């Protein structure tokens, strides 16, 4: 894991920044969210992919790409969470000030 982070840090940082941006926007966005049903299916899909990665089922380059994708997706989610949380704090702070 340490080796992959060292080797891929730039791409992971990109995913993190993308997540921060998306999270920042999502906190105030009025667009349509995904339905709960779809969200569950998506979570199941991610869980299956995660299980496949942990079990080393997918061989060779596809296995690496799966690891890479899941890693970037995980960092993206962390970025989203931080971005949304920061934006939420900022909004709450502005509301109290006004």
């Amino acid at each position, binding site marked *: 894991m*340490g*080796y*992959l982070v060292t*080797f*891929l840090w730039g*791409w992971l940082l*990109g*995913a993190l920044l*993308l*997540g921060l*941006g*998306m*999270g920042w926007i*999502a*906190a105030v*966005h009025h*667009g349509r*969210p*995904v339905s*709960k049903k779809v*969200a569950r299916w998506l979570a199941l899909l991610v869980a299956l992919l995660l299980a496949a990665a942990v079990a*080393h089922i997918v*061989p*060779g*380059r*596809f*296995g*690496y*790409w799966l*690891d*890479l*994708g899941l890693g*970037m*997706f995980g960092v*993206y*989610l962390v970025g*989203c*969470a931080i971005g*949304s*949380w920061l934006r*939420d704090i900022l909004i709450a702070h502005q509301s109290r000030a006004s």
Partner: protein
Amino acid sequence: MRGLFRWSRKWWPGVVPLVLLWIVAAWRTTGPLEADLTAQATATLKDSVLNRVGLSTAGRDVTFAAEAFSEEGRSSAVASVEAVPGVRLVNDQTALVPESKPYVWSAARDVAKVTLGGNTPLPTIRNKLLDAARATFPGVEVVDQMNFARGAPNRFDVAALLLIDQLTRLKDGKITLSDNKVELEGMARDLGGREAIAAGLNNLPDGFSVTRNAVQAPPYIFSAIKDPVAGTLTLSGYVPDNAVHAELVAAAGRKFFNEKVIDKLKASLGAPESFAGAVTRALGALSRLSTGTLEVSDREVKLSGDALYNAAGNQIRADLPKDMPRDWTAKTEVSVKPAAAPVDKTVCQQLLSELLGKSKIRFESGRANIDPDSIGLLDLLVATAFRCPSATIEIIGHTDSDGDDKFNQTLSERRAQAVADYLVKAGLPADRFKPMGYGSAQPIAPNDNDEDKAKNRRIDFVVRQ
């Protein structure tokens, strides 16, 4: 937390650029990642003793193929690749080097190159053998056809190094080590090479043995040329050692009293068995020729030249092959020298006296058996006697004063008779010879020292006028 859940349902639009980023990352990083993992795995195997190592990486999965020389080495090598940071899986295609039974190794030599083939247990031993071959044969191409195999006998490397050393003594040939049995074939570089190799093989490590030694040596040559014009006997070729050398030169001196012995002999190993005896007998036959050549090649004797008279030619042709030791062969190409012109009695006496002045007829000590060294002299006496057919010759035996007078008298008579018998056997009429003995009654020197006593022990030829 509820907020986070609410927000997360709106994070999906970012997944689209994330997927694009992922595709670009996969495209840009796969090659470098694979190269880096391969380099790290190669580096980690640097100190492992392996054969035919093959490493390839797909993503984070390494396919590792190699032949190991022990199970411990194999598992340790796989573990070290698995431990490389970043490697996800190792596709283990390693195996042990095959075991060989019988364990065969060979070293062959021809004019142009030295070839090492067969099995060798470890890269270090292989390199050691190749280095030894290159050092032993400077300037000669060393061809490596060795394969790795397990199952080498103990101290294989010591035995193989010794065999490479023995290969220097071969002009061409092959040495094969099969388990702990050694087989050799080929042609030795020098005379004595076969013996030198046999001696070298005594240093093989315990447990190793020679099952076949078919190394041949160049022919062991000896020659003697009797040249009556130059008055020389030239000895050349090889003798096994200094003792035999001295023995043959001494025998030649006794047999060829009329010729100067030119000694060009060299000592060398590799003489066939019974060499000294065979050559001494062949020199005896040569001494009976007026001119001739003796050639000995291994166990083959070839004598050519001219005998002094007919019966001598017949005797030489018949006796020489019979006189040879076992496994020796003799070929004779002996013709007979044309008879010399007759001479009168005075010249005949002069010629006989001259011959007996140069040498003496020798007998076995205390007996009347003629010493074989004196046959050459006797043949010259016979040839001279043929030149004066009308002369009657007294053959007179003398002894020194040692011993009983009666015994000496009898001995001198018997010795004179033995000489007369030889002459008759050579084809001369018996009635021309009067054998007689004087015992010690007619000394020609005082009997007070060995040298003078030897002068008194003699046979005289007196032509009756």
